């Protein structure tokens, strides 16, 4: 069954036709070319495919594209602005929050969801916010540091 839907992706309204069983992950990567959204485990455990759906972090592999009709979606591609990289992105670069890089966009999105709620999170809050994001390089300490520094830099 086909559905005509609109998604507001990184601030831009996009129209697309999706099959019922198509996931939001597939729509973002394959139809819209947003390959910053990574395909990891398909089972909701790794968080590589994390995006914000109406401001809340979700695994895009576990949401149907049609379920997201008319929703606002933020992917890692939408973090930077005309003025440059987002403070989280800068901090991930400066503090080695990116090792192989596969988990990084998901980590950034989870961090963004956290900073939207809490401007100065404690380390414990950062750890909790990242519970659904795995880093197989094991770069957690640097990721946490990157987020801490970014949150301090914001004001």
């Amino acid at each position: 069954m086909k559905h005509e839907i609109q998604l507001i992706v990184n601030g831009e309204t996009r129209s697309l036709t999706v099959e019922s069983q198509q996931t939001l992950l597939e729509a973002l990567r394959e139809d819209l070319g947003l390959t910053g959204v990574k395909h990891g485990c398909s089972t909701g455990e790794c968080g590589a495919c994390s995006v914000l759906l109406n401001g809340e972090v979700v695994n895009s592999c576990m949401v149907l594209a049609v379920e997201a009709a008319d929703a606002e979606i933020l992917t890692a591609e939408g973090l930077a602005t005309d003025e440059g990289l987002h403070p989280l992105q800068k901090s991930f670069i400066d503090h080695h929050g990116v090792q192989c890089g596969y988990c990084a966009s998901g980590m950034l999105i989870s961090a963004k969801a956290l900073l939207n709620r809490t401007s100065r999170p404690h380390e414990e809050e950062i750890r909790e916010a990242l519970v659904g994001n795995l880093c197989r390089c094991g770069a957690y300490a640097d990721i946490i540091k990157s987020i801490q520094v970014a949150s301090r830099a914001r004001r």
Partner: protein
Amino acid sequence: MKAFDYIRPKSLEEAVGHLTQGKRVNILGGGVTLFLQIQNNELTPDVILDVKALPGFHDIRYHHHHGLKLGAAVNLQHLATGLEIRRHYPLLNQTAQELASPQIRNRATIGGTLAWASPVSELVAPMLCYDAVCHTWSPRGTRTIPVSELYLGDFKTALEPDELITHIHLPSFPARTYGVYQRQTIRHDGRRMIAGAATLAIHKHHTLTNWRIAVLGVDDRPKRVPEAEALLEGAPAEADIARALEAVQENIHPQDVVYARSDYRRAVLNALLQRSIHDIISNLQDS
């Protein structure tokens, strides 16, 4: 995923049509379990019926006398953060906070969580302690099923295939109700659960009454252990606690799993419960 049709009815009348066509229909809450079942070919639906646009399915209503109504499509993140839950059902709040990840909590719904029927479905434990009741609807009408009667063991429920959970209801509890949730898992996400327990008691005239103990991962379904609860009534002494813990051990049937043998699960549950019961008693002494 294999092809299916997706429908999102806006009324129950509209849903009836889809449920009575003789097609294989699966009900969609948050999908975090359902989509895995479809990917693994455990389920091969013709139609997915999304309940998230049905009227009342997002209701959250608290009344100090009548208790709490939660629509089936309310997500677990709301249980983890909602003010009325934190204030009046802290045990439910605490359990939801510890469960899974923000990504999963933002999607998973109360209806889907209760219908999932896993022996390690953590939210069921506080629901059992709070005497939660499921309200359901099917083309044949509505009915109520206490959560304590919902599970038939090994992932089976008393729900008919075309029966929707519309909402759940929790009675109100006195302000001085204490609850503790304890879990032991291999990884933070509860899919490698060793054991878990929710414990609750009501403080009345310097004693603790109405004890409830609900255990997870140690039987074919989450369940209360009334044999142990009865032994704790009043002001339990160490000997009473020891007898209650023994009663728990006599009434559970844990399975061996690759990451935990049954005797280990027993030992872990014992430690979790001991801690929980002492926590509740010290809460009473502090107050």
